[in-house]
């Protein structure tokens, strides 16, 4: 028999018993809804993590000294940091930097209180920072009073009367620095330990004199492709333990951060999976119940159809299609519920909402399978009825 006619008949007969069908649907809806929500939240979490690191790249590492004890802040020796790519297998590039803070004075007025980053020539590239004007700090600026300003600092300078920040003199502590470049604005990343837009970049050699310390306290680095973050982290830690045994360094990697974020969502997903599977079983049993009642109620119809030439298989597929249709209707509402729930979750967590088509497809597939699995026995029962006995029933 044509599938279309069968589906139509299934809808008609389900509609005729709408209360019962509706009750059976609740379980399926909640079950599929949970599955969809689980998968969507998982996908969104992953997407969220990747999005956060799309600008920065997932091969990003930050290395910083831990504050161990008092006294002159110890630091990483510049040459140790610079030698990282040559001395280790896992690091492709490294940019040591130091951080201080100073009032920014322009034209006799204090215009900002900005982080002052002492950087090397590799800093911009490594952090994927770009310039809108002028040039970058290079290693040739050794101990000179040149600086590159972040987008917000440049804006403050302009407000203070500097038409074009490049070439203007600004005072940091007791030194007059000439602005040689302006950074393009870049999104703040939770992984990046500084905020480029608000910062002022000066040569690290200059910074170490402006803010006296024995070495840099931070390094950002990039791993070579296909290096695992645990290997890189270990190698870098070992390297510094060798070079500076008294120094305690912490290495953080973007990949590890992503993994942590994913682990957090996993707990949530597991909970939803548990709710989902229990509801699906409850829903499936509901579907089975509806179908069993339907078969009993429609014994006469089965007898008539058999008399008119329906084979057992025709009857079986008719009832199976009916239970599949019932489950699929539940599936559709479940998908809507799941997507809606995800929407609400995203609204409150501030994550970017998106619909995972794979999750929706899976929701369909699961509800289809529930229909087949729980509809099979009732359909078989219908098919095995003796035509005469079925015809005689009221």
């Amino acid at each position, binding site marked *: *028999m*044509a599938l*279309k*006619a069968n589906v139509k008949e299934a809808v*008609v*007969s389900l509609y*005729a018993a709408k209360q019962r069908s509706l009750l059976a649907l609740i379980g399926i809806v909640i079950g599929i809804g949970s599955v969809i929500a689980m998968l969507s939240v998982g996908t969104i979490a992953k997407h969220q993590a990747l999005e956060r690191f799309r600008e920065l790249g997932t091969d990003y590492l930050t290395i910083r000294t831990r504050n161990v004890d008092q006294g002159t802040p110890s630091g990483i020796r510049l040459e140790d940091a610079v030698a990282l790519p040559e001395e280790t297998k896992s690091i492709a590039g490294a940019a040591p930097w130091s951080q201080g803070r100073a009032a920014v004075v322009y034209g006799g007025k204090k215009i900002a209180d900005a982080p002052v980053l002492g950087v090397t020539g590799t800093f911009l590239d490594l952090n994927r920072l770009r310039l809108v004007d002028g040039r970058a700090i290079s290693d040739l600026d050794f101990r000179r009073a040149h600086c590159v300003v972040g987008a917000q600092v440049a804006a403050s300078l302009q407000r203070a009367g500097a038409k074009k920040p490049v070439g203007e003199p600004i005072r940091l502590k007791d030194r007059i620095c000439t602005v040689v470049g302006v950074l393009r604005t870049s999104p703040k990343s939770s992984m990046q330990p500084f905020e480029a837009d608000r910062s002022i970049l000066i040569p690290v050699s200059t910074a170490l004199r402006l803010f006296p310390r024995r070495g840099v306290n931070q390094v950002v680095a990039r791993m070579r492709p296909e290096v695992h973050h645990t290997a890189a982290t270990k190698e870098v830690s070992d390297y510094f333990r060798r070079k500076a045994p008294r120094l305690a360094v912490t290495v953080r990697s973007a990949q590890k951060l992503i993994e942590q974020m994913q682990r957090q969502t996993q707990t949530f997903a597991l909970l939803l999976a548990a709710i989902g599977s229990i509801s699906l079983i409850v829903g499936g049993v509901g579907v089975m119940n509806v179908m069993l009642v339907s078969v009993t109620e429609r014994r*006469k*119809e089965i*007898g*008539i*159809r*058999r*008399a*008119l*030439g*329906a*084979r*057992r*298989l*025709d009857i079986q597929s008719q009832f199976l299609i009916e239970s599949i249709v019932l489950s699929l209707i539940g599936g559709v509402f479940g998908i809507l519920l799941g997507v809606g729930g995800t929407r609400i979750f995203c609204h409150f967590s501030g994550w970017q909402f998106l619909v995972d088509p794979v999750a929706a497809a899976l929701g369909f597939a699961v509800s289809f399978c529930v229909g087949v699995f729980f509809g099979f026995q009732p359909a078989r029962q219908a098919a095995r009825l003796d*035509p*005469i006995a079925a*015809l005689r029933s009221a």
Partner: protein
Amino acid sequence: MLRLRDIRKTYRVGPATVEVLRGVDLEVNRGDFVSIMGASGSGKSTLMNIIGLLDKPSSGSYSLDGREVSSMTDNRRSAIRNASIGFVFQSFHLLPRLTALENVRLPLMYRDTGAAEMDRCARGALRRVGMEDRTGHKPNELSGGQQQRVAIARALVGEPAIVLADEPTGALDPTTGNDIMELFAELNGDGTTLIVITHDPEVAQRCARRTHIGDGGLREETASAP
């Protein structure tokens, strides 16, 4: 084309057994127009169900077109019911949720017939029984006689070789009953084999062969009416 030999049918009711058919012999050839008369409870419907491959006799042999029916698979019996047998049930047996047209279309659903073709055939069958203006009605929106005519249309729609009609005129007024018998005669003229169960001697009168069922046996009326 169909041959019944010593067909018996017993029912078990609690501890007792009731033998409804006690050795029925019947031979029906292609193009026959047979009536079966008998008292209520004499086993007419039981016999019809056996002839129509719906029920199985307790014993005896039944061959259809030379093939023994008892050895056929369920699928084969279903296929024969669908292709070669048209049932008009005593209590109509229409599906209450379907319209007249959909009810008539049912036998064709179990064949490889296109939707448009099914509709065409079903409308044609309804027209033959004078129900073409009630195609969209559900059974409970039809009178008993109208339901009976829809049931007849459903039996005819698949152009079966044999039509088994259990009191096809029971719910009809004499005129409409007459029309139906004329339709049957016309079908018979086209080569359809008809077996009609009836209480009405006038209906039986219009059948070429008349049989009577009683005491579990079938007896042929020998004298042919004018």
